């Protein structure tokens, strides 16, 4: 469960101060599927960074379960990311020189999983996203949808509590978009993951339990 209390995030750019998040307070219960919508520059990615322990808020408090993400040193935040949070990015963010299998294994590297077990779990994760036969291909040999499946396998191989996806279908065609969304929704349903998806797709958003709208750094709930 996430708890955010008066979270603000400001970026300094030369003379200008950008208020990416303004006084955001909300809770996200464990296992909820939340869709975040809003215009570009509204602060969606910034909010996802706070949830994902990638950065600390400028002020306010944010906690994931017992862990206070706003008051933790970098190394501890890294630990939280390694164990509890899975990320899926708009641009897939696979390591271009590594095979699908190896890309999935990178998520287990910081956990110190022995090589044998790492290989087995990565293979299982790839099979679960329907890519068992593409394990030894590098990203450039895979389609966009397949690459995003590898990224999803990488996010869930560590069996996280939370899955955060920033416009995961933004780079995909309509057909593939639905496949990826179906996959993510299935994972949420089957594994009880807390799933936060930033999306421009209203059809996707409508299927979510909860919809948040972010504009000028301010969150509003949508029915």
């Amino acid at each position, binding site marked *: 469960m996430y708890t955010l209390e008066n979270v603000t995030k400001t970026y300094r750019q030369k003379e200008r101060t950008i208020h990416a998040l303004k006084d955001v307070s909300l809770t996200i219960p464990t296992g909820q599927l939340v869709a975040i919508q809003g215009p570009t520059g509204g602060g969606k*990615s910034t909010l*996802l*960074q706070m949830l*994902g322990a*990638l*950065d600390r808020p400028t002020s306010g408090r944010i906690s994931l379960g017992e862990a206070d993400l706003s008051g933790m040193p*970098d*190394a501890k935040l*890294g*630990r939280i*990311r*390694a*164990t509890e949070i899975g*990320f899926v*990015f*708009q*641009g897939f*963010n696979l*390591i*271009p*020189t*590594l095979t699908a299998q*190896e890309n999935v*294994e*990178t*998520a287990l*590297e*910081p*956990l110190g999983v022995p*090589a044998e077990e*790492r290989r087995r779990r990565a293979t299982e994760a790839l099979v679960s996203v329907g890519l068992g036969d593409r394990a030894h291909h*590098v990203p450039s040999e895979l389609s966009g949808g397949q690459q995003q499946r590898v990224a999803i396998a*990488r*996010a869930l191989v560590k069996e996280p509590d939370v899955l955060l996806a*920033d416009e995961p279908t933004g*780079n995909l065609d309509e057909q593939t978009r639905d496949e990826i969304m179906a996959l993510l929704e299935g994972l949420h349903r089957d594994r009880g993951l807390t799933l936060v998806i930033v999306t421009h797709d209203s059809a996707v958003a409508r299927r979510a339990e909860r919809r948040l709208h972010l504009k000028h750094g301010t969150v509003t709930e949508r029915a």
Partner: protein
Amino acid sequence: MFFTYLRRELAGRRRQTAIIAVGMALAIALVMIVNSVSAGVRDAQAAVLESVYGVGTDLTVSQASGPPEGGEEGGPGVRFEFGTEDGETTDDGTTLSNSRLTVDRGTSTFDASVLDTVEAVDGVSAASATLSLTNVTFDGELPEPPTDQSSGDQAAAGDGTMPAPGEGGGGGFGGGAFDVTSVTVTGVDPAAEAIGPLSAVELADGRGLDSGDTGEYVVVLDAEYATTEGVAVGDTIDLGGTEFEVVGTVTSTSADAATASNAYIPLDVAQELSGMDGQISDISVQAASASDIPAVKADLEEALPDQTVSTQEDLAASVSGSLGSASSLISSLGLWLSVAVLAAAFLIAILFTIQGVTRRTREFGTLKAIGWSNRRITGQVAGESLVQGLIGGAAGLALGFIGIAVINAISPSLATTSSSAMAAGPGGEGGMAGGFGGGPMAAAQETTEVVLNAPVTLGVVALAVGLAVVGGLLAGAIGGWRASKLRPAEALRSVA
């Protein structure tokens, strides 16, 4: 994972790997070659010095300038004084032959008692005196003298005085056939074996000089000279008008250099025949320990205000000729060139590594976002750079070996003119050439040919590998530091 990722990166980004490795390889090969050649030049210098001063000589005492303390006046050049018995007059002119043993031009002699002073100095473990001489033989036929004197008898019977070589005034004797041969002769203490010129030679035939030879007319010849002259052990040769028995021949211990002198005779005999009683030209000094050398030098200089005291280092500076040029070329140009190329290679490695990290901003951000620590990522970048450096190092090592092998295959030979007190200065030859108008002449060259041999030492290999590691780690440290500064949020940066 570390090695898989490393391997995939290097294989997947071949161009970057190749550029960094090639830069490192060229630089390392150059450093190896320069290092090896300069070691070769140093060896050659040492060989030349050794042949002149002997093994184990730490210091030498000589008197390069200033008036000699006694004996014959040290006027320039050699004077031939032909007595009646030397000439034989025919219809065409006069045939003359004369052999004189004199102190080298440009060499000053000093009293032998200096040796006692040297031996009394603290820290001197051994000292031995030598007298450097030149035996000049004049063989020739004088044409009708270009004077008004009509009587051929007069020219033959009277004391004709030839202009000394180097005086440059002898323009008048066109058409005669002269042969001037000069042979370097060193008077050595026959009892001294451990130090002095004969300590750097190897017996080729017969025996060396020993304490029993004092006062004897015996000579040890440089083997090469003996071959040229066609003399062997048991034969006799003429030096300064006296018959000497050849008791042995010697070769230089350093394969590439000739011995310092053509002939070695007992010191007292040398002094007697050159009229230099009680005079010496050089003292070879051995210090009790290498660390004492500066102190011994200072003490010697204080005790001997009139003489020059030189260490091996001072002497190395006196080795001139193409060997000297090679040495200064290597130490100046070679050093700077290799430093510059090495710096360029390091810079290329660093810049390309930084560029690589910048290009992979999103990649490293993503790895941080999924929990990789800064240390782990820095290590990955450093590992990549180190391996790139090592690939360059291996290629450089191979390239360096090839370069050194090529140099050794060509084995350039370097001429060296030792302008030290023992060998005649370069002026000696120049002066001779100027003097005579017509006749063919042969003057002994004071130059030594040394074949340059570039050695491949373990040190050179270690240097190459060390540089590869240093270059790789330097680029890796800087690149890794840049990577560790990246924020994990970079992973979310939009693709466009």
